[in-house]
């Protein structure tokens, strides 16, 4: 760990990515993610970075695919509408096994929408927003500090599985300033024998996502599925708070987890046994976090019309015990607002 500083989420994330050895950044300005490309542009000379402002997110996502194909650490950062434009390349990178990192700062959609906080892109990030059967790892921090640490993990996970990884941020985390202890410098340490570098002294490497008949393409897909199963088995991340004795368990990630934490404290002060499950990996969804919690009542809170709640219902044995409260348009509920919802559920 390095020095303690007071930084905006986007800036702290960009600095941590540079410290993770990500020297290549291709991006297109879009609120609320623009401080990330701005930081890379500003630091390019001093740090020896390659920064390119692409013409569209369509192009930027293909540019990161290109650099990832050469084995270098590379990243883009975008928000809702830009993330939608990148989906074609997300599907491509997952199919081609390209280890790029994508920062998606959620803002309220659909369409242009607003530029405030939202979690409405959960489905798109977690279920695979592009075409075909694929998955991308998705990590969701709930603080600027955690964002700094997870963005460094993103590069290692991308290389470990040769798969794109999404850091799922939101407008609140991106724009918020907090005290952080910046992580140290990391070195890339992985097998790069697959990369495109010119085939001097080795057999040539070819990357294609174009199938060659049903038999070949089914095999290709089954190999991908095998990789996704391995990720599912190994990479679940979560934190549980006071779940053991709880009657009601809140489930929230990202910014919303901060609010849920406040609501949990209000409830405990009022004598209600309330706990919190905070998923950190959204794909794979942390199924293990719910082990032993089968009989509890759940209140899933999101800045959406109800997206992660579907995964909670798929995970717990009694989906009738899963309740939902969400806000839309950029509103972030207060802990008190969530506390009122908890009270409505009553205690068994």
């Amino acid at each position, binding site marked *: 760990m390095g020095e303690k500083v007071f930084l905006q989420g986007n800036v702290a994330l960009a600095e941590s990515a540079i410290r993770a050895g990500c020297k290549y950044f291709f991006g297109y300005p879009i609120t609320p993610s623009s401080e990330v490309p701005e930081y890379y542009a500003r630091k390019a000379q001093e740090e020896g970075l390659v920064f390119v402002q692409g013409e569209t997110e369509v192009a930027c996502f293909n540019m990161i695919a290109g650099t990832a*194909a050469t084995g270098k650490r590379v990243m883009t950062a975008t928000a809702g509408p830009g993330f939608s434009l990148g989906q074609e390349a997300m599907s491509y990178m997952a199919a081609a096994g390209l280890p790029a990192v994508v920062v998606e700062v959620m803002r309220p959609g659909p369409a242009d929408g607003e530029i405030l906080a939202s979690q409405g892109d959960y489905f798109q990030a977690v279920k695979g927003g592009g075409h075909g059967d694929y998955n991308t790892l998705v990590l969701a921090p709930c603080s600027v500090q955690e964002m700094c640490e997870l963005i460094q993990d993103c590069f290692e996970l991308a290389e470990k599985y040769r798969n794109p990884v999404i850091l799922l941020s939101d407008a609140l985390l991106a724009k918020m300033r907090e005290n952080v202890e910046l992580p140290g410098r990391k070195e890339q340490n992985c097998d790069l024998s697959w990369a495109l570098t010119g085939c001097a002294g080795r057999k*040539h490497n070819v990357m294609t996502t174009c199938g060659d008949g049903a038999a070949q393409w089914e095999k290709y897909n089954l190999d991908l599925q095998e990789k996704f199963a391995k990720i599912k088995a190994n990479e679940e991340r979560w934190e549980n708070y006071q779940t053991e004795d709880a009657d009601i368990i809140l489930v929230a990630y990202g910014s919303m987890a901060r609010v849920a934490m406040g609501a949990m404290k209000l409830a405990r002060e009022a004598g209600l046994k309330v706990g919190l499950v905070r998923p950190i990996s959204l794909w794979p969804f942390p199924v293990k976090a719910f082990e032993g919690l089968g009989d509890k009542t759940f209140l899933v809170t999101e800045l959406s019309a109800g997206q992660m709640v579907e995964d909670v219902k798929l995970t717990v044995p009694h989906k009738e015990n899963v309740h939902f409260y969400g806000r839309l348009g950029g509103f972030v509920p207060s802990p008190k607002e969530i506390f009122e919802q908890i009270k409505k559920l009553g205690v068994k």
Partner: protein
Amino acid sequence: MKTIYKRPEVFTDVNTSYCGGCGHGIVNKLIAELIDEMELREKGILVWPIGCSVYADKYYKMDAICALHGRAPALATGIKRSLPDKFVMVYQGDGDMVSEGMAEIMHAAVRAENFSVIFINNAIYGMTGGQMAPTTLLGQVTSTSPYGRAVASSGYPVNMAEIMANMPGVCYSERVTVNTPQRITATKKALKKAFELQFENKGLSFVEVLSPCPTGWGKKPIDAMKMVDEQLIPIYPLGAFKSPEEVPAK
């Protein structure tokens, strides 16, 4: 005995998927010959498109990647920025480049990317079965212009080599064709020039090749060769529209 002709070393033993009389196979062979002659095999990455040449990554013993439809210049940007000392060739057809990927090629030119782009213009979509392309000639019958391409509904053919010549980030733009032995030799010369320019830091080098498509055009190979002369060249004139001598290094 002296060897005067042999199969290019860089080629694999894979059969191509090209139809008889198609220009792709000729251009693919010229590229292979140049890779051998210029010793680029171990120094380069080939970027292939979606289109009739989609399987071309299998034809060369060379590092290669097949891009998404239209996105090859963006993908190649990521590769060349990472490996500026390597040879990077982008190969695209007219549907891929001029329709799906017009933004990507234009902005690769805007940024003056130091790679070579080979553009195969056969005025039709070959792989998907003979539909209209932006390069389809006025009046030309295709499966999506069954009464002939009309300006009222589909506008005009696009002259890429001329457009690229107007871009300050392009250091060389020439249109060639492969319908006679003499023109095949000229095409090889143009490709060689484009490849050499990659290492002069002058920006993007562009070669458009008018390519006969007997299957898509519904013609015998010999008649397709004639159609290049009679119908394509009047709209798409041959020649260099920008010479690298006019362009200083960046």
